[in-house]
């Protein structure tokens, strides 16, 4: 049973159960294991006569296990100099389109790999693979977010080149993914202008957890009553340090600034 997510492993499906041998750019071929040393609990009393009750101090964070897996993923990324971003938003904000456009614009300059999280289907991973980038789909089943354990297993199946950019597209949900560290360098929250300006104060944890807010679908602004100024003010209220870039994945506006942000942050700024 999967030990971190909110559902049994029978619910979580990760594409591609094949052995994970792969070839690097320099021609070396090797295979990895990336197993979590988890031993299922098998505890029983050997002394039924001694049933005296006692207290045991625990004092541990409930998310400690997830955070330990996240640290493991972070070490894996550091070892390969991979720059990982965790993309979060509501459903329908345009994450996948933005990702496809980002991959297209980085072609020839930066290798990109993608982990896609959705409750069901592998449609998004297929859209990404159509751009030529390696992608793996995680279906969370009943789960409402990706956790570090699922991502760790997805990494076993993903051909992740050294120094690549890994984009983890989380399940469309502005609540739960805020609490689960996946080992990423930054969370990037995408808010589209077809949503309300007040989303940052309605879902403060997510906007607080993010380093960058991409305000997407800005090409639609002339047709809407959306106030960019107000949206930015709400985002800054919950997170004074958040960076904000206005983009349109459709027209390409703001994309240069977004790519520049990725480059600066991946260089350790």
């Amino acid at each position, binding site marked *: 049973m999967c030990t971190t997510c909110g559902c049994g492993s029978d619910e979580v499906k990760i594409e591609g159960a094949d052995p994970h041998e792969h070839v690097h750019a320099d021609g070396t071929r090797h295979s990895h294991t990336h197993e979590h040393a988890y031993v299922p*609990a098998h505890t029983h009393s050997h002394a039924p006569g001694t049933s005296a009750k006692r207290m045991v*101090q625990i004092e541990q964070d*409930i998310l400690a296990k997830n955070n330990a897996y996240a640290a493991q993923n972070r070490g894996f990324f550091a070892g390969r100099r991979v720059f990982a971003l965790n993309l979060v938003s509501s459903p329908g904000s345009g994450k996948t389109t933005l990702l496809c456009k980002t991959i297209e614009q980085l072609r020839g300059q930066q290798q990109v790999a993608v982990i896609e999280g959705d409750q069901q289907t592998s449609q998004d991973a297929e859209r990404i693979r159509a751009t030529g980038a390696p992608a793996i789909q995680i279906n969370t089943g009943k789960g409402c977010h990706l956790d570090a354990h699922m991502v760790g297993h997805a990494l076993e199946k993903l051909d992740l080149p050294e120094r690549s950019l890994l984009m983890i597209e989380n399940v469309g949900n502005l609540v739960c993914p805020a609490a689960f560290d996946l080992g990423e360098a930054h969370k990037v929250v995408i808010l589209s202008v077809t949503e309300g300006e007040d989303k940052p104060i309605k879902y403060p944890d997510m906007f607080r957890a993010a380093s960058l807010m991409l305000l997407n679908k800005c090409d639609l602004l002339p047709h809407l009553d959306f106030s960019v100024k107000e949206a930015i003010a709400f985002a800054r209220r*919950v997170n004074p340090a958040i960076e904000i870039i206005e983009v349109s994945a459709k027209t390409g506006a703001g994309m240069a600034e977004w790519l520049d942000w990725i480059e600066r942050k991946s260089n350790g700024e």
Partner: protein
Amino acid sequence: MHEMSLAEGVLQLIEDAARREGFGRVTTVWLEIGQLAGVEVEAMKFCFDAVTRDSIAAGAKLEIIATPGTGWCLPCGETVALAEVYGACPRCGGYQVQVTGGKEMRVKELEVA
């Protein structure tokens, strides 16, 4: 928010402790849950019962210790009570408040047999 995942996390900490401390049954679990942690206590109890069925914590009582939401208001220069996360300071109405307490989600103690 994601009480099912949290309940799974609690059970895992319990099972880890059982291996470490060598106990076979848990009768009471004390959780410290901050008022700003976004955890619905009733949902947590329901999920805890569901995930602990057939485990060493089956039928265990879940006790919730609620910790109050507090923040440090920069303009006021003092600790204030916070009813919602990233909410306004009840004294000055400003939003320059740093949450200092109430986001805890911890397994505190167990009564075991």
